């Protein structure tokens, strides 16, 4: 059973890996190609989250500054 799962899993992974020619003279490596499919979306998610996180940081740091300038007045 475990064997079947492994074969099925590696089959699925390989299907992804050889989906698109890499337009490259060098072998990009199946490990790298699968990884890019698996984590590409996640990396994009992280990047989006990071943008929102920066906005939140700017929002709070901006508030902090404006409070300080209020106090200075």
């Amino acid at each position: 059973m475990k064997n079947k799962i492994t074969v099925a899993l590696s089959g699925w992974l390989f299907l992804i890996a050889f989906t698109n020619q890499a337009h490259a003279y060098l072998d990009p490596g199946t490990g790298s190609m699968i990884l890019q499919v698996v984590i590409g979306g996640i990396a994009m998610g992280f990047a989006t989250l990071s943008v929102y996180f920066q906005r939140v940081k700017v929002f709070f740091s901006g508030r902090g500054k404006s409070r300080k300038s209020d106090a200075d007045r």
Partner: protein
Amino acid sequence: MLGATSVDGVRIAGSFRDPAGYVFQRGDRLYRAVTKHGAADYNAAKAAGILTWLCDDRRLVRILDEQPSSDGSVTVLEVERLPWITHPYEWSFQLLKIAALFHLDLHLDLLDRGFTLSDATAYNVQFVGTNPIFIDHLSIRPYRAGEFWAGHRQFCEQFLTPLLLRSYLDVPHNAWYRGSMEGIAVSDLARILPIHKKLSWNVLTNIVLQDKFQAGTSSEEKRFSVKERKLPKQAFLAMVRQMRAWISRLQPADRKKTVWADYSLINTYRDAERQAKHSFIADYVRAAGPKTVIDLGCNTGEYSERALASGATSVVGFDFDVQALDRACDNAVSRKLNLLPLFLDARNPSPNQGWMGTERLGFSERMKADGLLALAFEHHLAIAHNVPLDQLVQWFLLVAPTGVIEFVPKSDPTVQRMLALREDIFPNYDVHEFERILTTHAVIERSEVVSQSGRTLFQFRRSS
């Protein structure tokens, strides 16, 4: 201008992988042939102004001339020749990191303009001083929607894993990289990283998972069919940006100080002696006028800087202490010196190696200069490594026609320490013998004793 527009010349042995073109030289001039395979991508990059933009930015070596070959089979570009070609296994951690960040920034800027890089070999990055510059015009090509980061694995093995080796395991990459030549395999690093390091997202994905996916698919290739699948550009960009953020945070572990890391601060010289050494070197550079200088045993680059201040235009320093090299690199960057500090174990310099034994040329083939500094260096080979003095002198003279060599006598505390636990098998090792040998191969222009222990500087000119 090209004298002839044929591709007659000597092809550079390491230039054979990419069918888009190859590099060859004719005399002192360097050329890149663009084949029909690479013509469309090259023309696209040229038409979009990408090559001019990068050359003007000093991020890409200049194209001096472009002509079709006489038989029309290729386009021949005459390209700028850099003063030094170096290999990633000669770079310190800091230089490798500079090269890695440079490569990623270049890639991000290209993606921004609708172009990409077809590979990620570290050998395409070279240095002018400590400023990185890209040398392969044909690695740049239009980005095709949905394509993968073709050079991701190569980037991991030629930049990332060597940096992780020093950063996580406190092991310099140089010897391993030189042995494998193509970097450090992801699978090798995955085997030796401690488990707690594997738990971070970056290591888990780029090292552990990449290794697992690679291993899980290495057989059974013929069973599976091809299906359309794309990597969105935003995902591509996010991966490159994440890699950049990770690498920018990496620092050498440096759990212990290396022997020579603090040498420039705590060496056995007194200030007056040090001053005498500085003056001697300044006088040599002003008198002999070497433009390029090789500084063997450069440590943090103190005397390289003196040579530059006295009229040399470019210095390559060599040392085997990786922490001293990182300091030299930091000094060169912060003080904007045209100094390139490189790793060298002089007992075993970089050899000619790779395909046909000539793909990557060794130290003696590549490293020639107008001038040589070999200060506090000779005794490490002559005493600590038993190299006969006459062989050593001849080796020095192969590097440059003029220079300064410091002789360290047995009365010096450093040599006494070297001999403290071993038999003194050097009955003829003294300054007179050194002088006699040097005189048989060179003219001694002047000499000066610069320390109380009897250290002596010799300025030489190779006999023709």
